[in-house]
C-alpha cells in the first residue's frame, strides 16, 4: 500500500521537475543561468488561473483532447512499475494497453490540431503521425525483447526481467534495446534531435505546433501531460539502464529518484551538444531505433 502511494505521488508530482532539470542542464551548457528548476510548476499554476480562448470553428474535440491525453498517460503510468516495485495495476497483456494509451493521447492531440483548421497545425499533425508509425514498432520490439527474456506479458514482470535475469547472454540485447529506447524517449517527448521544444518557428515544429491554439488551463493540461509522458517513458528506460536493487524500500525509492534525475541530465546533455536533425532525416533515426530493438530480439532468440 505504501509503495502504491509513493508510486502515485511520484507519478503526479515529480514529472515537471524533470523538465526543470533538463532546462537547467541546457542552460549550464550554454553558459546561462537558466530558469529555476521548479519553473514548470510555476507555469502550471499560472496557466490554471488563466482564461481560455476557444476558436468558434472548433468542436468538443479541441477541449476534450488535452483531458483525454492527460488521463491516458496517467493510466499508462499506473501500468509501469517504478524501480524494483510493482505497478499499481498489472494484468496479462497490459503492455498492449500501455502502447495504446500512449497512442490514444496522440490520436486526440492530432485530431484537436486538425480541428482548428490551421495549416500549421495540420502540418504538425501530419509529422507527428508519420513519425509515430516508426516509433511504435520500436516500442513493441523493445517490449518483445523483455517479454521473451522474462516469459511474461505483464509489464510489471517483463520490465523487471533485466533485474531478474542479469545473465551474460542477455546483456548484449539489453544494450541494443537501451539505445533504441533512448532514441524513442527523445522522439516521443519531442526533444532535440527530433523536435525542438524551445523553437518559436512554427514551420519547423512537430509537437508544439499542434497545440498552438490551446491556451490557459488547457495548455497547462497539455504541458503537464507531456511531462508525465517523459516521466513514464524514462521509468521504462530506467529498468533497462539501471537494473539494480538494494533491498531496502526507502533506499530503492531514493535510488529511483536519483536515476530519474540522471536520465533528465542525460537528455539535457544530448540536447546541448547536437543540432536538430533535418525533418527528412528523422525517420532514419527512428528506423535506427527499430533496428536496435529488433537486433536485440534477434540476439536473444538466436
Amino acid at each position: 500500500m505504501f509503495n502504491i502511494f509513493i508510486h502515485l505521488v511520484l507519478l503526479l508530482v515529480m514529472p515537471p521537475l524533470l523538465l526543470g532539470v533538463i532546462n537547467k542542464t541546457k542552460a549550464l551548457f550554454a553558459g546561462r543561468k537558466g530558469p529555476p528548476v521548479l519553473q514548470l510548476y510555476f507555469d502550471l499554476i499560472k496557466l490554471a488561473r488563466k482564461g481560455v480562448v476557444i476558436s468558434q470553428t472548433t468542436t468538443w474535440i479541441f477541449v476534450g483532447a488535452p483531458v483525454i491525453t492527460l488521463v491516458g498517460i496517467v493510466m499508462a503510468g499506473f501500468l509501469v512499475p517504478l524501480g524494483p516495485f510493482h505497478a499499481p495495476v498489472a494484468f496479462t497483456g497490459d503492455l498492449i494497453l500501455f502502447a495504446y494509451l500512449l497512442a490514444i493521447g496522440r490520436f486526440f492531440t492530432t485530431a484537436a490540431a486538425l480541428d482548428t483548421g490551421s495549416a500549421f497545425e495540420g502540418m504538425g499533425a501530419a509529422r507527428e503521425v508519420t513519425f509515430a508509425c516508426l516509433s511504435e514498432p520500436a516500442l513493441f520490439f523493445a517490449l518483445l525483447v523483455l517479454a521473451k527474456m522474462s516469459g511474461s506479458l505483464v509489464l510489471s514482470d517483463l520490465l523487471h526481467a533485466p533485474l531478474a535475469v542479469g545473465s551474460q547472454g542477455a546483456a548484449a540485447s539489453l544494450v541494443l534495446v537501451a539505445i533504441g529506447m533512448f532514441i524513442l524517449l527523445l522522439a516521443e517527448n519531442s526533444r532535440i534531435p527530433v523536435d525542438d521544444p524551445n523553437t518559436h518557428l512554427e514551420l519547423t515544429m512537430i509537437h508544439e505546433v499542434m497545440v498552438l491554439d490551446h491556451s490557459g488551463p488547457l495548455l497547462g493540461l497539455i504541458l503537464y501531460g507531456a511531462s508525465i509522458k517523459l516521466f513514464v517513458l524514462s521509468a521504462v528506460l530506467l529498468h533497462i539502464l539501471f537494473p539494480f536493487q538494494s533491498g531496502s524500500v526507502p533506499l530503492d525509492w531514493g535510488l529511483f529518484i536519483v536515476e530519474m534525475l540522471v536520465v533528465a541530465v542525460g537528455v539535457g546533455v544530448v540536447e546541448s551538444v547536437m543540432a536538430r536533425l533535418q525533418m527528412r532525416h528523422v525517420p532514419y533515426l527512428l528506423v535506427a531505433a527499430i533496428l536496435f530493438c529488433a537486433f536485440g530480439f534477434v540476439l536473444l532468440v538466436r
Partner: protein
Amino acid sequence: MTNPSEMLATINGQAVALEQIPRHDLATFQRIVLRETAHGQRVASYFGTASGNPGGIDVFMVLANDANSELNLLSSRIEGDSFPAMTPDCNQLHLFEREIAEQYGLRPEGHPWLKPVRYQASWRPGHDAWNRPEGQPIIPGSGDFYRVEGDEIHEVAVGPVHAGIIEPGHFRFQCHGEHVYHLEIALGYQHRGIEQAMVSQPVKRALHYAETLAGDTTIGHATAHCQLIEALSGCKKTVRAQSLRSIALELERLANHIGDLGALSGDIGFLPTAAYCGRIRGDFLNMTAVLCGNRFGRGMLRPGGTGYDLDAARINDLRTRLDQGEKDAANAIELFFDAPSVLARLEGKGILPAEICHTLGIVGPAARAAGLQRDVRHDQPSGIYRFVQLPLSTWDSADVFARAYVRWLEIRHSIAFIREQLQALPAGSIQAPTGPLKPGHLAVSLIEGWRGELCHVALTGEQGRIQRYKITDPSFHNWAGLAYAMRDQQISDFPLLNKSFNLSYCGHDL
C-alpha cells in the same frame, strides 16, 4: 569602354551636373541598358522622378561597372501611362519596374509579374497602374498570389504576424507535403514613406531618417547618406573622419554577422553557439557605444565627418574589448563549424547558384557565398577603403553553409581591419564644413553594409534642394533570391534559409 554619348561614367560619392547625364529616347535607353547588363553591368538603382516637365516621368539608371570601379548614368523620359518592360530581358529590373509602376502609375507592358511592391498609393494622383479607385486604403498583401494547381498541392500562409519578435512580412508557400514548389513573398507592411520624407524635410533631419531607415544598418545608411550630402555640397571630409566611419561600419558588420551566426545556430537547436553569440553580439554593440555612446551607432555620423572622436584611453579600451571579443567569437563559432550535426544541417540547403545571383542582381554575403566577387568596399571603394584594401571573402558552395561561412570569414577580416585602423588612426579634425547643396546635380553613394550594397541617390533642383531621394537597401535585391533558394526545399527548412539571408523588411519597405 563607355561611350560618353551613351552613358556618363562617374565614381561612387561624386556629384555630376544633371545636364551632363546623357538623355535618350526610351527605345535607345532600353537598348543601352539591356546591352550593358547583358555584358555584366549591374543595376544599382533605377528610379523615376516627376521633377522635370509636367506630364512625363524622367527615369534615371545607375549601372555599376564593378570591373572598372565606375558607375554609369543615363536617363530617359516616359510619356503616357505605360512603357515596355525590360524585365523579361533583364530580370534584375523586376522589382525596380514594379516600383516605378507603383510610385508613378506607369504600367510596364510585358512585365511577367506586375504586382505592387509596397502597397502604397501612387505619387501621381489620378494615375494608377492597377486602376484602383483613388482614396481607398490599399491593404498590404492583397491581390492574387502565384498558385500551383493539383489535387495534393496545398498552400501555407505565414505572417504577417509571426511567432517570434520579428518584422511583418507575408509568405505564401505552394507545397506538396513537406516539399515546397514555390514561395511568394509579400512585403510593404512597414512602408513609412521615407523617400518622400527625405525630400520634404530639412537636410539635418534627413540624417535621422537615414539612421532609422533600417535599425540594424544605422551606420551603413547614415554613412551612405552623409557621403551623398558631402558629394552634393563639395565637402572634403578628413582622413580621420573617414577612418572613424569605417571603424563604426565594420563594428556594425561584426555585431550583425555574429548575431546572425548565433541565430542560425538557434534555429537548428544548437544551443551553445546560439547563447554565446547572443552575448558576444552585445559585446560588439557595446564597442559601438564606446565609440559614440549608442549601441546602434546613432549620432556617430554627421555630414562632413563624425559626431564623436576617439581619444587614446578609448582607443585602448576598444583594443582590449576587440581582443576579448575576437577570442570569444572564435571559440563559439569554431564550435559551431566543428559540429558534424551542424554541418549536416547547413550543407546543400538552399542553393542560390552564381548564375542566378547574376540574373537577380544579388548583393552582399549572399552573392559572395556563391563565389561572386561583389563587394562595394572592393569594387566601388569610397572613404578609407580607397586606401586600405579588405580581402574579399567568398565561398563557392552557395548554400546555407556558404552564407554562414562567408560571415565568419568577414568577421575575422573586419576585426583585423579595425585593429589596423585603431593602431594608426590618422590625426586631424573629425569634421569638415559642408556648404549648401549644388543645384541641378545628381550624386550616387554606395556603401557595403553588412547585408550588402546600400545605394543612395539624390537629385537637387534649381535652388539646391533635394528633389528626389532614392534608397536601395540590399534587401530590395535579395528577397527574390530567398524565394528562389526555397524552391524544391523542405518547408521545415524555411526558417533556416530565411535566417541565412537575414533580410530587412523595413529596409525594403522604406
